[in-house]
């Protein structure tokens, strides 16, 4: 069994260049991983939930879903009823519509912070691991610096500083520009590349002297080609696992930032809804908190399970460990 997989792996490496082994070409790393992931029913359910939320977010961003969240549909703080499942908020707006529209913020916070964090983390990590020596020292120093300040302090400080630019940024981007959301994106992006960078560096370090890289070198591949074409595809699984976790961290951080007054302001978000409950709970208004928490719970749980399942599928060595 072990020999078989070893052979399979070797063929896998070879068939990157060698078209003569067409028969098993489909069995790439990703294909294997998908095969393993398919076995896991809970993971598939989680994936469907994530996709569902993504579609809801997309539709509401396009204005096709819950675009009328700002409309007043009833009295202030109406309790949940068959008409409005989660009641109304202070202004008499439908809470369910706000929850649906808030999906936009939740998903975009995860997506955009990943878009910021992945290029930084991947590039720095790969370069540090591959070149070693003083390049490595500088990059390690750089991320140690970032990670020495507690995450929440740095997150807070960055969001705080960006928010101070309210006037100039709004005049630049127009009045529709939501400075709060922008600050959340940047702050989360700039704080979350460190973990990825560290993991990628470690993995590249393990890969750089492997036979397949040596082989590529023997065939005349330069540093850039070896790194981009050969090593990075073999460490991408870390990026994927990390992204799944990044989404849930981002969604949860948005709530904290809202509490600190550094969150989204122009549109509904689960963070602001949960934060509003500070004043509402004492009056017995629980529905805004309940609705936003439920919506968040389902998707964060899905991302958590998916992250674990992805790790098991893409990195079977670690299976069952956590």
């Amino acid at each position, binding site marked *: 069994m072990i020999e078989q997989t070893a052979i399979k792996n070797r063929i896998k490496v070879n068939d990157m260049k060698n078209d003569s082994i067409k028969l098993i070409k489909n069995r790439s790393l990703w294909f294997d991983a998908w095969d393993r992931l398919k076995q896991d029913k809970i993971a598939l359910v989680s994936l469907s939930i994530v996709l569902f939320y993504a579609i809801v977010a997309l539709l509401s961003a396009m204005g096709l879903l819950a675009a009328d969240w700002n409309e007043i549909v009833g009295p202030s703080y109406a309790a949940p009823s068959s008409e409005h499942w989660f009641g109304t908020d202070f202004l008499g707006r439908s809470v369910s519509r706000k929850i649906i529209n808030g999906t936009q913020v939740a998903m975009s916070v995860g997506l955009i912070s990943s878009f910021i964090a992945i290029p930084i983390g991947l590039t720095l990590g790969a370069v540090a691991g591959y070149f070693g020596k003083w390049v490595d020292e500088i990059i390690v120093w750089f991320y140690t610096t970032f990670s020495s*300040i*507690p995450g929440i302090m740095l997150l*807070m*400080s960055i969001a705080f500083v960006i928010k101070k630019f309210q006037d100039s940024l709004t005049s630049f981007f127009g009045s529709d520009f939501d400075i709060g959301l922008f600050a959340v994106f940047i702050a989360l992006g700039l704080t979350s590349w460190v973990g990825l960078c560290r993991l990628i560096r470690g993995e590249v370090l393990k890969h750089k002297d492997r036979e397949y890289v040596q082989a590529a070198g023997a065939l005349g591949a330069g540093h850039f080609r070896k790194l981009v074409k050969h090593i990075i595809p073999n460490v991408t699984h870390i990026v994927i696992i990390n992204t799944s976790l990044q989404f849930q961290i981002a969604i949860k951080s948005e709530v904290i930032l809202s509490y*600190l007054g550094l969150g989204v302001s122009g549109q509904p978000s689960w963070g602001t809804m949960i*934060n509003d409950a500070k004043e509402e709970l004492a009056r017995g208004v629980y529905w805004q908190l309940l609705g936003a*928490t439920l919506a968040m*719970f389902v998707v964060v749980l899905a991302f958590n399970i998916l992250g674990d399942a992805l790790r098991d599928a893409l990195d079977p060595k670690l299976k069952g*460990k956590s």
Partner: protein
Amino acid sequence: MNGNLNYILRRLLYLVPVLLGVCFLIFILFNVVAPDPVHMLLGKHPSQDQIIQLREQLGLNKSLFFQYVDIVRSAFTFDFGRSWSTKQDISTMFMNGAIPSLTLTLPAFTIATFTSIFFAVIVAYFRGKGIDLFIRISCIAMMSISSLVYILVFQYFLAFKWGLFEISGYEYGFPNFLYYVSLPILIWVILSLGPDIRFYRTLILDEIYQDYVRTARAKGLSERVILFKHVLRNAMIPIVTYTVVQLPFLLLGSLLLESFFSIPGLGDMTINALNASDFPVLKAMSIFSAVAYIFFTLMQDIIYTIVDPRIKLQ
């Protein structure tokens, strides 16, 4: 041992560039990127004289390089100047805030760590069985709820509705503070259970698949003896080192819990500084926490060599 000493010395030297880097990051954020604080402090229409005077007072008339030097100096001397909003000496504010923070975080952390290890051992003992699955799923589920929700709901039900705890506030001196910190402690423990149990379980399972466990089993030792006498003892090494790195964060208190329950600790102080745009306190807090973090990671490495003689630091 000589090698270890060498290593520790080198690590101590490494503190310097990291600290310089932290200062640089803070300098970039607050002195370069952030807008001029003078206008924030003086309101909309200050006179020219006022501006010049305040810039002089805050040290903002210096060149950027010397502003950076000022930050570095404060990191090494712990003299952070005065707060803009309360006009107090920041180091004194730190001293005053540290005690309420520690009365909350120290017991909370201790209880949370022991409970988590307890559950992690149970989970590791029954690995693969129903109870393992149940606890693991509960952990993930608990981690999927925002910490703010726990705080809101617990405060509402346990303190406001049922009156089991104080709603908020703080009193100095033992045992008075206990009335105020017990609910935050409970919330802290519940918040840490999810991630901690998962983490400790991983550490214990890392050991369970080692060769010496197989040997112990082959000798005919019972699963219980193996777990408690062999596995747990070895797993203690990463557990201890992990907890050491957490210690600096205890000093910082908990931003959310302290501000929510009005406990006048360092976390609460930070949030107030944030709301008052109090740059010096925010800067000082970042530097202070970074210094603590760097120091405790060094401690972690040293403890590693003491508890695990197999490890030679290079």
